[in-house]
């Protein structure tokens, strides 16, 4: 310690300050306290992470909500865009400060976490009265259920499929792979024509787990059973693809958007990605000759769901107005216009016009039995996905064998689920 002569007075002041802080700490925030609530004033606030009014991902929602605003004189809709990486944090901090939105458009897999934390409201009664539950696909509906109660309504759905470049396929004389074994050999063949046979995200974090999870689902496992052999089989499959040149080692540095860049540029003959990129490819590279095939099969054929749910913020001053807006957004006539513009799929089966486009239909058909994490697995999906991406990284870099990597990932997942 530095030896200085401290005034007794200032030392007492510091002591007083710290005890004051301690008292104020237990008076608010995580270490004590309570939250207020918003008031009802005819304004319905909507928080979302899709994008702002100028972005192709944001504009359709603004249009839909503006139409609703115009139809209802007594309601004023206020939309706030919060980027995805800040969204959950902002929503949680808002709830802690008693400043929740009326409507929050959240990632479907975060529903349980938000419900447990008291960020969103139980809307079971409203849903019961509404009576349209049976229109929804079971996988989508399941994400809204927490402890037997309903905490949201599916807004849209999305899943993964195989995009392929028709010209490169023709030049190489191959067909879209129907099984993962075919995928391994096809990717290697295509890598002789263009730079990459297959492009898929594999970068550090949850997003980079997309490819390996889809492969493991096909092997008949899921996040909870990564260590039981299906995980190792999936890891081995990816290792073979890297070894035979069909998949570049660089995929470990790619996000989904990077995979799209390589596909759009003609460097990659195939990519595994969500329907999000259908309109983007059509806009960016109208001359690219591509199509979409269902994901290859192994033991089973399975895609996984990526989706958002509409929820009502805890302490919303006007839950009835919030509910009215949510129900409006889910009317088939509204969805028929909104979904194609937003480039997403319906979470319910009574919107045929939204999937007339054959490419979008390929995605929609897979929704029927798409996988989604449930319960605690959903709450800890971020951590679990990060763990299986690490297993992928360890396998590809030769740091550990597929079996060991899968077991290590399973241990991490179990640890997360137990916490």
């Amino acid at each position: 310690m530095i030896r200085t002569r401290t005034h007794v007075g200032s030392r007492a002041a510091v002591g007083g300050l710290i005890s004051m802080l301690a008292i104020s700490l237990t008076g608010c925030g995580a270490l004590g306290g309570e939250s207020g609530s918003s008031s009802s004033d005819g304004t319905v606030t909507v928080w979302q992470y899709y994008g702002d009014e100028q972005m192709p991902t944001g504009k359709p929602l603004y249009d839909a909500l503006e139409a609703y605003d115009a139809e209802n004189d007594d309601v004023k809709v206020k939309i706030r865009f919060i980027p995805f990486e800040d969204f959950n944090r902002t929503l949680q901090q808002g709830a802690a400060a008693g400043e929740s939105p009326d409507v929050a458009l959240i990632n479907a897999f975060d529903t349980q976490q938000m419900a447990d934390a008291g960020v969103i409201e139980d809307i079971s009664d409203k849903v019961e009265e509404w009576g349209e539950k049976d229109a929804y696909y079971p996988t989508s509906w399941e994400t809204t259920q927490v402890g037997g109660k309903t905490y949201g309504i599916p807004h849209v759905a999305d899943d993964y499929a195989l995009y392929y470049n028709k010209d490169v396929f023709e030049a190489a004389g191959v067909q879209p792979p129907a099984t993962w074994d075919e995928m391994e050999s096809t990717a290697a063949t295509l890598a002789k024509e263009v730079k990459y046979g297959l492009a898929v995200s594999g970068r550090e974090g949850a997003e980079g787990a997309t490819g390996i999870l889809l492969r493991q689902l096909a092997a008949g496992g899921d996040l909870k059973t990564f260590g039981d052999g299906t995980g190792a089989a999936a890891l081995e499959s990816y290792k073979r693809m890297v070894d035979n040149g069909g998949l570049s080692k660089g995929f470990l540095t790619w996000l989904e958007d990077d995979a799209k860049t390589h596909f759009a540029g003609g460097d990659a003959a195939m990519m595994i990605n969500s329907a999000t990129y259908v309109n983007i490819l059509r806009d960016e590279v109208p001359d690219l000759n591509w199509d979409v095939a269902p994901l290859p099969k192994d033991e089973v054929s399975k895609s996984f769901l990526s989706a958002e749910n509409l929820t009502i913020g805890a302490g919303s001053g006007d839950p009835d107005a919030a509910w009215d807006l949510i129900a409006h957004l889910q009317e088939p006539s509204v969805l028929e216009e909104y979904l194609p513009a937003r480039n997403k799929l319906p979470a319910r089966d009574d919107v045929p016009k939204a999937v007339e486009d054959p490419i979008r239909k390929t995605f929609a058909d897979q929704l029927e039995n798409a996988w989604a994490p449930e319960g605690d697995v959903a709450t800890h999906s971020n951590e679990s996905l990060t763990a299986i991406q690490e297993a992928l990284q360890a396998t590809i870099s030769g740091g550990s064998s597929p079996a060991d990597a899968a077991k290590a990932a399973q241990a991490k997942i179990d640890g997360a689920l137990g916490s």
Partner: protein
Amino acid sequence: MSSLARSAPAARTTVRPGHRRPNLAPYLFLAPAVVFVVLTVVYPLVYNILQSFFDVGLREVVQGGASWVGLDNYRDQLGRSEFWHAVVVSLVYSIGTVVIAFAVGLGLALLFHREFPGRNLLRALLLLAWILPTVVSANVWRWLLDGSYGLLNAALSGLGLLDRDLFWLGEPNPALLAVIVATAWSFAPFAMILLAAGLQSISPTYYEAARIDGASAWQQFRSLTFPLLRPVSLTVTLLIFIFTFKTFDTIFLMTGGGPGNATETLPVYAYNEAFEFSRFDTAAVATTVLMVISIALALVYFRALRSEEGA
């Protein structure tokens, strides 16, 4: 806090005779600064330290009511290999950055200590690296290091040093090296400026005397420049170390802590704990440890500086 109070001028300004009120003016002038520091530095700091002794998950953040768990969070974290891995990566990353940034900075400072045409322009250009926002520089490095279209690989294979696509950010050791080099690149100009100022302050008469005694350039550097630069060098290394030690953005943008957790430093680890996995209490443990190490280093630094001055 105590140093703040002591820096208040204790001198009594002249008051009219017979008027013996204590003079509060200096304290009034200080008050805004003190309040500002308390609100923006002391409060969050103490809050964070306190949070590491409570059980804080998402529910507690939203609804309050966290329970006191004493040292449980510390026990949990200090018993985890991931945590120690993050500490080691932080140290390797910071020390590596300091060594490279200092060496390059010193070389540049010596270079610019001479007169040559275009010197000022070149120096200004170098400063860009320091001024450039991290978002820009980190992404530029990502492109440079890309395995398939990166400039670095193109240059290396052009020189015949590389015969395959090396994905720098996709392999553990190259990725760690890459983030160290990228960070050092932005700190080198900063080191250069401070060291150049240090060089300016060395009296040229020393060198004249050395030259008369027939000392070579290397001897001059070793026996004069280097020892006389020591106080500045200490400042430079410590500042860069502390900056780097708490750096989050460069690594987060370049690798996200990956591949695996090869570049997961303590700040990235803390971020993941809090905002990816909603474990706010253990994140607070990580940031508290981060702070303790930085403060310890600062104390070592002040002590060293004092002994330098006393020498």
